[in-house]
């Protein structure tokens, strides 16, 4: 049986919208941003789960809430069979060793006034490592991410974007965690550097047996890195399954639209894009019924009233659409030609 490293049940995270006192008194109910609305998923050991969604879908908030960096509104988070969602203080800090995060922006995720070797060593100091062991570990981790060891006493602004992201990765790896949330790790980098970073992450996953939650808006990255993927829209999960199956046989109209927007370099294999019309819904006042209904080209009356639950349409493949079964037989743009993905070593699959 696959061992699940992370289990999230009905996670909800709302942010209060602050109004003037007068508006709040008159309105009587406070407005909330429904960033994450009842999301449940599991991640197995050694797996990479790709979480895809557009900006504002709530995926970054989800990644942070799962690590307890934001206080959840409700729901349970279970890490290695221990419920961490209730924990606080020192009890929670002990788990920081096992779960880490790499942020999107390498320019604001490193303290500009701390030297790089201190940035990497700080997690060790927080948990009381001896000085000589600390130096050893910093050197080891820095070599593992291909950073120049003699340059470590400099400040972050003296490094390039790719190097800074590698510093962030080194910082995340230094406590030897088992689970890492990668929040758009390559979105702020040039494409040539992106490939380097992704390959580095894959190498480390193989060597250290890591589990990743990869959050991105770039479906190409998910295709390259993740063995399972899930699509998020307006705070809810709309599709979940193995990467290959979701990309070849999408069962939700939003997923279809996302996939059709992946650039294909081979002109003979390009397909007509199916653009999504309409605007991103407001997270403060999400649409009634299915949240995608204002923009869906297959919308029916039922969609505007009843919210579809995430249900298992095919084995291991879930979708939140009333008419998902009909998409199985529909003639959708072919996605099996993946010419742009470089030769990849297969990741160790659990189960």
């Amino acid at each position, binding site marked *: 049986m696959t061992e699940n490293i992370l289990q999230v049940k009905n996670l909800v995270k709302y942010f209060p919208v*602050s109004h003037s006192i007068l508006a709040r008194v008159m309105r009587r109910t406070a407005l909330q941003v429904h960033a994450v609305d009842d999301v449940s998923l599991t991640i197995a050991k050694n797996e990479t789960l790709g979480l895809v969604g557009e900006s504002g879908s709530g995926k970054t908030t989800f990644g*942070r809430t799962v*690590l307890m*960096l934001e206080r959840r509104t409700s729901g349970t988070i279970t890490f290695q069979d221990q419920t961490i969602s209730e924990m606080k203080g020192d009890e929670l*800090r002990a788990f*920081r*060793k096992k779960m*880490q*995060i790499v*942020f*999107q*922006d390498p320019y*604001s*995720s*490193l*303290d*500009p*006034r*701390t030297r790089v070797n201190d940035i990497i060593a*700080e*997690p060790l100091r*927080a*948990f009381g490592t001896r000085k000589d062991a600390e130096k050893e570990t910093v050197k080891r981790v820095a070599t593992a991410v291909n950073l120049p060891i003699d340059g470590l006493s400099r*400040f972050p*602004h003296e490094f390039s974007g790719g190097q800074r992201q590698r510093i*962030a990765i080194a*910082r*995340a790896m230094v*406590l030897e965690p088992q689970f890492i949330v990668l929040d758009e790790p390559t979105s702020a980098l040039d494409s040539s550097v992106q490939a380097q970073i992704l390959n580095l992450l894959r190498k480390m996953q193989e060597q250290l047996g890591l589990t990743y939650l990869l959050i991105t808006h770039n479906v190409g990255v998910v295709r390259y890195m993740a063995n399972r993927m899930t699509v998020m829209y307006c705070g809810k999960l709309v599709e979940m399954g193995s990467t290959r199956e979701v990309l070849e046989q999408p069962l939700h109209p939003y997923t279809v639209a996302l996939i059709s927007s992946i650039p294909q370099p081979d002109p003979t294999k390009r397909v007509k894009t199916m653009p999504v019309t309409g605007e991103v819904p407001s997270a403060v006042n999400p649409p009634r019924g299915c949240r995608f209904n204002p923009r869906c080209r297959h919308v029916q009356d039922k969609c505007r009233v009843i919210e579809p639950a995430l249900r298992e349409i095919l084995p291991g493949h879930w979708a939140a659409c009333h008419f998902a079964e009909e998409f199985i037989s529909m003639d959708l743009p072919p996605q099996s030609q993946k010419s742009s993905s470089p030769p990849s070593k297969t990741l160790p699959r659990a189960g």
Partner: protein
Amino acid sequence: MDCHPDWVCTSTIIVKYLCDAYTNLREQQTGTISYVGRRLLLIIPVILGVTLVTFVISFVTVPNPVRAWAGPRATPGAIAALSARYHLHDPIYMQYYWYTVNLVTGNWGLVPSSGREVLSDIALFFPATLELAFTSLLIVILIGIPLGFLAATYRGRMPDHLIRFFYLGAYCSPPFFVALLMILIFGYTLRIFPTQGELSASLNFPAHITGMVIIDSLLTQNWPDFTDAVWHIVLPATSLSMLYFGIITRVTRASLLEILEKDFIRAAFAKGLGKRTVLLKHGLRNAMIPTVTILGVLLGGLLSGSVVIETIFQWPGIGLYLERSILSFDFPSIVGVAVLITLGVVTANLVADILYALIDPRIKV
């Protein structure tokens, strides 16, 4: 026309030497020393510019400079002597030359009403202003910055609202109003703090080492004087610093709030650091960068003394001296104080510049 080839040659040589020094320092390209050195060298043209302005005010824009510098009741003999002393019959550029030489050598003029040297008067009054300025700075740093920190960490909650109400009120209230209010409450009604002067009339001043009563009494271990002087400085320093709370607390709060949104703060929490460590080490240290530079600039403002505060509290500083000089039409004293204030502001800005380069590693030095 008198030609003075000597000073032309000397000045040219000096200027050339300074330019060379500047270029050398620049080419070194390494480290803070070259940066500080360059900053110091740049002070010289700034001060020359400053002296040009004060010269114009003192000698050119005044309709009758001789009368102004000699005073309204001067005898013809005195006028003749002063004309010679200030070279008032030389061509204008020569006057400027002699003016700068006089400034540097300490000849800032004679006070018409008392016959004393302006510089010795200033030397007498300036330490008290210095004392008041540093104490105000200390109050702003020790109270203003922690308040800004608290307001940012408790953002949106009651402590934040209270602190913002406080510093906004402090900033908007006129200093004289605050001063009078404090005198009324703490001086007369509650009778906690004394309200006039530097030291009680019953005590003797300590030995004159620096001129600042608190420091002198500390150095000579004169404890009764020390406690009395500290008690005396509380009300004036607090009134003076009220205005600056509005600036420093607000800037600290704003920059800390901005820093706390950044990813590296979240990363610090993810690393397992405790809340206090993250807020102080990563948050406040970065937020202090703009605060410190503003403090440096504010010090310039504090050093210029406050005529109003010093008059209300009868604090014997240059603000009080300026007030008396204005009332007795002592033109040289007024100009002397103006020069001092400008020098103080220039120095404070220099200090702020250097500090900024030292504490922010992102500044290419």
